[in-house]
């Protein structure tokens, strides 16, 4: 079963951290159809966070069709993010590796690489929304 962790300094809202961790686990194939998420009580007792926050995260995941709440039994994975995209990962990773090698050859250090990736990603996401 997935265990959530919190980064209090990340600036990311707690419920979003939970949503992201479930999605990441789905993307990486660590969570699969039929798997159960920990109950709200279990998460709350473990992380000492607001039960409403956990409920909100689970509601968001439910709205996206990734999980379903079965009354009295718990919340289960009913959707997946891995299947359609997982097979592309290997090719994409190879492209990324050659890009990284080019960046290092061009003299970028780790910090510059991270900065370039995150600003490019952010701008691309903004364009997508606009």
């Amino acid at each position, binding site marked *: 079963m997935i265990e959530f962790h919190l980064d*209090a300094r990340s*600036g990311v*809202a*707690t419920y979003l951290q939970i949503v992201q961790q479930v999605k990441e686990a789905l993307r990486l194939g660590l969570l699969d159809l039929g798997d159960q998420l920990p109950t*709200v*009580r279990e998460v*709350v*007792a*473990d992380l*000492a*966070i*607001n*039960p*409403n*926050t956990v409920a909100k995260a689970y509601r968001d995941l439910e709205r996206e069709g990734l999980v379903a709440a079965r009354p009295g039994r718990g919340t289960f994975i009913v959707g997946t993010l891995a299947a359609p995209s997982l097979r592309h990962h290997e090719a994409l990773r190879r492209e990324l590796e050659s890009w990284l090698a080019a960046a290092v050859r061009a003299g970028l250090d780790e910090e510059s690489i991270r900065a370039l990736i995150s600003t490019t990603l952010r701008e691309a996401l903004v364009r997508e929304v606009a």
Partner: protein
Amino acid sequence: MTAAVETWGLGKRFRRGWAVRECTLSIPEQAIVGLAGPNGAGKSTLLSLAVALLAPTEGEIRVLGHDPWREPETLEQIGYVGQDSPLYRSFSVGETLDYARRMNARWDPTIANRSLAHLPAGRRVSALSAGDRARLALAVALGKRPRLLLLDEPFARLDPRAGREFLQMLMDGVAETGATVVVASHVVADIERIADHIVLLSEGRVRLEGNVEELLTSHRLLTGARRPLGRIGGVEEIVRERHSGRQLTLLARLAAPVVDPSWSVDEIALEELLLAYMAPERLPRRTTDEKRRLRWHG
């Protein structure tokens, strides 16, 4: 949705002056509220008014829809833990829980039993650690299965580990009872983890109130070159203005996203937001009337 606590122009004056003044707020049911503000801001007074330990000087307060002063039966549905976990120090753990059971018409021992299992029933309250004492006081409050739980500076004497254990027990109790919670604390970090609603008091007045997510969404830090300030598209109010060299940093409340590319726009953390709203330049000047009264009593 009904409000768990609602006040209109609520004020409480002591001999030394107003502890709470012109306080109007509405706390939604099932919220977990961080009641923030520096020491002496009026947090304890506000909680005391909610549980009818004090009567208002002016204005009105409704708790779970009732006036707690005129309808004291409302108090059966409220759990209140004052500062320093008030308990009878000569009682044992068992006697404390037994007393709580007999004092409360609706008493549910499960929460207390589950979270205090490691405490010997025969141990005196005076011999407990600060953390265990705080948890015992919380167990007594949760055992009532309150609809509203008010906690006054519960973390003040707890080390980080005891603080975390207290929080786990509190959140577990909330998950079970669905209670609305108000936690007063002058340390923002203590309430940041759990609060979904904030009431910020300073000098007895409400400086900021609202849903945490909405507050964080509607405020942004704008950084740019220093310039004469005109209207900025999207900005509703400038909360704080800071210059350093050629740089200008604004904390702004937004009505719409700021798209002007000459500003770099960043999110703000809750603690910084509250500090900005507490800043002295945002406090209203005292009226001459108040000044005179303060001098009279001072």
